[in-house]
């Protein structure tokens, strides 16, 4: 599946997007964030405070417990500051 990052999550990870192939044990968005955090210092840094990072699956806001099965595009980003 495709991951896409925004704002300081993107800056800390150092890339806009990537294709990933998580293991089957990664079921929810929270699982995915924990798995990503273990991939290196830049990811650990981006997900240092997992309660702060928000997620969207296929362009819709989701909660950490949302299942990622079937997702085409998962986005991680800080709390929004538009408007």
């Amino acid at each position: 599946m495709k991951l896409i990052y925004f704002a300081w999550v993107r800056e800390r990870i150092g890339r806009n997007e990537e294709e990933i192939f998580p293991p089957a044990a990664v079921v929810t968005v929270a699982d995915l964030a924990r798995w990503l955090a273990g991939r290196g210092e830049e990811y650990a840094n981006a997900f240092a405070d997992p309660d702060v990072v928000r997620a969207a699956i296929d362009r819709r806001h989701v909660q950490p417990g949302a299942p990622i099965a079937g997702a085409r595009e998962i986005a991680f980003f800080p709390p929004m500051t538009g408007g």
Partner: protein
Amino acid sequence: MSAKPSDDPPAKVRVQADPFDAGAEAHALAAGRCDIGAVVTFTGLCRDEGGRLEALELEHYPGMAEEEIGRVADQARQRWPLLGLTIIHRYGLIRPGESIVLVVAASSHRRAAFEAAEFLMDYLKTRAPFWKKEHLKERGAGGWVAATVADDTAAERW
């Protein structure tokens, strides 16, 4: 109050880098109609924060930005009997004094237009996928603007 969104004209939602003309958008919404009694226009502008700020850079999530604003617009049209609704949100580099966001809500009576416009702004602040980064006059690139508890609280009122 209830309204059937399917009977209303759809909301006009635009996400763009270019400036917009708030007056022209508001005028377009009411032009040629005799059933609209109230038009509320909200324009959000970039402040220079006491001279500190050179510009704001607005990052957005293309695709989701339009879709999420559209979903918030549908919620507003379900809750209030709106006769017209326009929402424009800019991205990219925006200088102090320039407009960032526009909401125009039209209804037969003023209460619905005011409430819908305020609801939309509260919701756009916390749900629309945009992020502001400061560019400072003194030190160049500053930090990302932090989300405020006040904005979350404002959205929870509704």
